[in-house]
């Protein structure tokens, strides 16, 4: 029997408790920490303070006593310098302050609100959103969500003005006067420190594999005694991770390969089979043809929002696979190769020195080139093109790229609620620091192929082919759920706000001119947002 994983970390302190009383016993009772098989909750209470949260430490251990000692000394840097996924709330009743700290790897998102005379903190946006008596919708942030902005730069706001998000490696302080302050805990100077490239390509690649070996060992130690899974595609990243997992726990992990005739450009099962044969790995083939976006939404025009606009109905593939891993195989934690693409850009110093400018160039130019104006309406395009939106962004220095951080920050509900913890060793800062020292001779052409061609003991020749775009897979939801999408878009809140071309999308869908619909990822998120926005009442806040 698997535990109920639907509950999230949730703390709600009413104003009375934080303005006058500050009684540890009472405050401790306001912190809800669901029990799980992994990660274990941390909860320490004394007469003077409360320390609660979750921490998965991948580079050693931290005992509850050590964690409390760190909090009491405000030595936050000791926490966030660790390779760890964590969120910790510390209440000091003598000092009358609440501290919230997030780990640098972003595995735990953290949302907070000071609305309705309460301080509310949770790993779940939907949990806080459900408590609000009024919501103000931030149009600028709605446009950012449509554009998957968190993959370009970390978010410190949500689409709802009353709910803020604490980015990775950031400290939130709330005092008795309810004054809040957020402080990035990694300095910009740290992240831009010059590095010395390896003098030889072979030396670099060997060090990268040796580091990955140590990192994977640490992750396995953090998840010891748990049932481990590992995702395997025909690409390099998941193959490297599976190879290493298999070296450490030969025969004790369960390997999964998602496949579909519609996805052969992404995962070629023949290549996977050859890779497995080489390394003595047995992988479970999981057919995912029917796990496309919105496939689980009930027929009919009424689709009930589950409360999360990022993951609701858009990630059926991940929900489906994770649920199967959990229910059929009892998997508690799964490895993936996520972060492997970003690793190959770690040597690009401009991303560290100019993260906001680079995020802007990437986002604006990518979407302009792909015809974003065919999906977004002029008002949204004006917001999208507004450089002031970027100029006012706060600097959140990080060793890990925003797109790798976004995985934990955005998709957390699907890992948490299926009870399968997601581990991304290739996004570990120790890997990033080695990858940043890539010698110049490997920079040109396809870097990943250059790098991994030096390890023929791990990879097979068939893997050295470019991955294609599985168009028929990605557009399946348009064809299969046409009526559902038309029904949602005919009541479009985003269209009414002047943000998306809902009428044009309806026209193309009804005429079954699917190939003319561009930017499917944006269309997908527009539908997800519609489901959310059509459920709750909002007051609009113009940009």
């Amino acid at each position, binding site marked *: 029997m698997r535990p109920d994983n639907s509950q999230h970390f949730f703390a709600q302190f009413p104003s009375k408790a934080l303005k006058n009383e500050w009684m540890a016993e009472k405050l401790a009772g306001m912190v809800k920490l669901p029990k799980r098989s992994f990660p274990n909750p941390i909860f320490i209470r004394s007469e003077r303070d409360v320390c609660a949260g979750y921490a998965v430490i991948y580079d050693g251990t931290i005992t509850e006593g050590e964690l409390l000692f760190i909090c009491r000394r405000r030595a936050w840097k000791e926490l966030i310098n660790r390779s760890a996924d964590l969120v910790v709330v510390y209440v000091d009743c003598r000092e009358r302050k609440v501290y919230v700290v997030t780990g640098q790897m972003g595995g735990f998102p953290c949302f907070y609100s000071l609305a309705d005379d309460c301080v509310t903190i949770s790993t779940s946006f939907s949990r806080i959103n459900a408590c609000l008596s009024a919501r103000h919708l931030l149009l600028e942030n709605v446009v950012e969500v449509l554009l998957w902005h968190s993959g370009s730069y970390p978010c410190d706001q949500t689409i709802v003005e009353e709910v803020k998000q604490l980015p990775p490696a950031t400290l939130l302080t709330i005092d008795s006067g309810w004054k809040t302050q957020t402080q990035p805990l990694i300095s910009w100077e740290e992240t831009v420190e010059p590095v010395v490239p390896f003098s030889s390509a072979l030396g670099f690649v060997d060090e990268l594999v040796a580091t990955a070996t140590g990192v994977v060992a640490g992750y396995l130690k953090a998840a010891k005694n748990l049932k481990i899974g590992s995702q395997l595609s025909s690409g390099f990243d998941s193959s490297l991770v599976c190879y290493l997992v298999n070296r450490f726990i030969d025969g004790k992990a369960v390997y999964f390969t998602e496949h579909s005739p519609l996805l052969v450009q992404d995962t070629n099962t023949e290549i996977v089979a050859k890779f497995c044969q080489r390394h003595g790995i047995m992988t479970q083939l999981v057919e995912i043809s029917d796990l496309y976006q919105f496939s689980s939404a009930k027929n009919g025009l009424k689709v009930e929002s589950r409360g999360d606009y990022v993951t609701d109905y858009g990630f059926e593939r991940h929900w489906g696979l994770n649920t199967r891993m959990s229910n059929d195989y009892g998997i508690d934690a799964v490895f993936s190769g996520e972060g492997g693409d970003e690793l190959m850009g770690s040597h690009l110093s401009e991303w560290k020195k100019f993260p906001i400018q680079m995020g802007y160039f990437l986002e*604006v130019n990518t979407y302009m080139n792909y015809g974003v104006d065919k999906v977004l309406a002029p008002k949204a395009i004006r917001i999208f093109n507004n450089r002031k939106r970027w100029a006012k962004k706060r600097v959140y220095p990080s060793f890990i790229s925003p797109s790798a951080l976004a995985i934990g920050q955005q998709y957390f509900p699907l890992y948490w609620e299926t009870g399968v913890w997601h581990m991304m060793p290739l996004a570990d800062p120790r890997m990033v620091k080695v990858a940043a020292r890539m010698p110049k001779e490997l920079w040109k052409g396809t870097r990943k192929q250059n790098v991994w061609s030096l390890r023929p003991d791990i990879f097979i020749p068939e893997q050295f082919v470019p991955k294609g775009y599985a168009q028929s897979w990605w557009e399946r939801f348009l064809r299969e759920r046409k009526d559902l999408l038309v029904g949602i878009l005919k009541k479009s809140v985003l269209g009414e706000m002047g943000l998306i071309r809902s009428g044009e999308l309806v026209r193309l869908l009804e005429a079954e001119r699917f190939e003319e619909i561009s930017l499917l990822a944006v269309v997908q998120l527009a539908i997800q947002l519609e489901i959310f926005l059509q459920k709750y009442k909002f007051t609009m806040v113009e940009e």
Partner: protein
Amino acid sequence: MDKSYSIIKRGVLFHPELDELNDFRTVVYNWKTSITLGVNKFGYQILKIIDTSPGLMFEEVVSQISRVRGEAKWQVEGKVRYFLNKMVNESVVIEA
């Protein structure tokens, strides 16, 4: 040289905090080639002047940069011309 200059917005972003941290060196983006280029403090100042007053004539750019840097016009004119030509060729600045 009676030409005017404007920024191509998708290739230039000013960010007060990061600009200062980087001692007013920055990066610009050629949207046609997807190549990022480094720009020194002198170039940054020129871009900032053009961004503030789109369509500025060459002589005015020279005047303003000479004031900002406290250098004579004849000292900066050649460097401004070189930089603007480079930025025009890289599709970061429009010349009209």
